[in-house]
C-alpha cells in the first residue's frame, strides 16, 4: 500500500500515519450512559459513567470533543517512565528503547485534544520532544555506518512509524544506489579488488546484515 497524498511518491504523509495511529486502543472514562457501539472493527462499550473502558483513539477523540469522556493517558506517558527512556536513549548510541509503534502520533493527538487529561502536560510534552530528537539523531548516525559493511540491508530495531516514515524515501533510494553500484556486473574482478583491499571483500560474504 502506498500513500495517497502524492501519487508519484510512495510515502505516507504525516496525516496518513496519524490516521493509522488512530486505531490504537486507549482507555477512556465516560461520563454518560450509552449502549454498546457495534462497529465493523469491533464492539465498544457499553458505556457507564465513571467506568473505564477501552476504545480506539478515533472514538475516544470523538467522544472527548463532545465532552462525553476523559481520556486516560497510556502508562508509558508518565513523567518517570519518559525520563527513564530519555536517559537510556542518551546513554546507548546503538540501541533504541522500546516505545509504542505510534508514540509520536498518539502523544501529539493527546496533546491536541486531551491536554487537560494529561498530568504534568508541559513536562511530558518536552520529554517526548527530547526523546524524538535524540532518537532521530541516532537514526541518522546508524544510517551513516551501514554502508561500511558493504551490505544491501540495514537492521535497526524498535523504530517507530513516524521515524521510519521520515527516512523512508532517502533510505530507499540510497540502498537502491548501493545495490546498483555494488552489483557483480560492475565490480567484476573480486580477486583484483581483494589484492588491493582485502578487508573490504572479506566482509561481503560474512556480514550480509548489520546487526543492531
Amino acid at each position: 500500500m502506498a500513500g495517497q497524498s502524492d501519487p508519484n511518491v510512495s510515502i505516507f504523509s504525516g496525516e496518513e500515519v496519524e490516521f493509522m495511529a488512530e486505531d490504537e486502543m486507549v482507555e477512556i472514562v465516560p461520563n454518560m450512559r450509552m449502549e454498546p457501539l457495534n462497529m465493523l472493527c469491533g464492539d465498544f462499550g457499553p458505556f457507564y459513567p465513571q467506568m473505564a473502558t477501552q476504545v480506539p483513539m478515533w472514538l475516544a477523540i470523538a467522544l472527548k470533543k463532545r465532552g462525553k469522556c476523559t481520556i486516560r493517558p497510556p502508562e508509558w506517558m508518565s513523567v518517570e517512565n519518559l525520563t527513564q527512556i530519555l536517559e537510556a536513549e542518551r546513554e546507548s548510541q546503538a540501541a533504541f528503547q522500546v516505545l509504542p509503534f505510534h508514540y509520536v502520533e498518539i502523544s501529539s493527538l493527546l496533546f491536541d485534544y486531551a491536554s487537560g487529561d494529561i498530568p504534568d502536560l508541559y513536562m511530558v510534552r518536552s520529554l517526548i520532544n527530547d526523546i524524538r530528537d535524540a532518537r532521530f539523531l541516532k537514526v541518522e548516525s546508524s544510517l551513516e555506518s551501514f554502508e561500511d559493511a558493504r551490505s544491501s540491508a540495514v537492521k535497526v530495531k524498535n523504530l517507530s512509524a513516524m521515524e521510519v516514515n521520515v527516512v523512508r524515501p532517502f533510505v530507499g533510494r540510497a540502498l537502491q544506489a548501493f545495490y546498483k553500484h555494488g552489483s557483480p556486473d560492475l565490480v567484476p574482478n573480486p580477486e583484483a579488488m581483494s589484492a588491493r583491499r582485502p578487508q573490504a571483500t572479506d566482509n561481503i560474504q560474512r556480514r550480509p546484515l548489520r546487526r543492531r
Partner: protein
Amino acid sequence: MDPLLQETVLEKAGSIVRKVGSFLKMESYYDIDDILVEGQRVPVVFQQAVNGVDIDPSAETHCVEPGSKVELPYWLAHELHLRKVAKMKVPACFNQRTKLELGADGASVDLRSRCLYFYEFGCKIAPLVSDRDMGSFLLSAFRTRYQKILAKAHNAAFTAHSKLLSYLTKEETNLYEAAQSSMAAFKKWRIGGPRFERASVLGRKRKEAN
C-alpha cells in the same frame, strides 16, 4: 543427458536470459534521465574504415579512416563498439585526475560540472571500456559522498546547502531532495494546521431572501 536435449535446454535458458535482459532494458525506455545519459558523449577510435558518413562536416571525403578519434553519443558509440567498428575510450569525466580528486576528498568534488549523470553513465560505460576498476571506483566515490549528503540532508534549511547542491550529480540531488521533502512534510505535520478542512459552502452567509 542426451546431447541434443542438453543443447535445446541451453538454448531455452539463453533465450529466457535474453528476454529478461530486454525486459529490464525496456524498464527504463521512457525514463528521460536514461535517455539523457545515453546522449552523453564518449570518445571512440574507429577500427575500420566507414564509407558514406559525415561525422565532421568540414572533412573532404565522405568516409572515416581507421584510427580516427571522434566523440560520439553513447547510444551510437555503444552499437559501433558491439559491432567492433569502433573502440570506446574512457570519457574525460572518469580520467585519472578525477579519480585522484575523488580519492583525496570525495565529498567536495564538483561532479555536477563534469558529468551530471556521473554514476549512471559510469555504470553503462564500465563493462565496455578497458578500465577494470571503474565499478569499484564508482562505488567508493558514491560511498564517500553519501555520508556527506546524509549528514546534511535531514537537518538544516535548504538555502544553507546551495553550495553543496551545486556539486551533486543528478542521482545525489534526488537523494538529497527526497530527504528534504520528507523532513519538511514531517515538520509541517508536527506544527499542525487546521485538522479539518472547512467546506467552502459552510463559511458563506445565508443569502437574504428577496
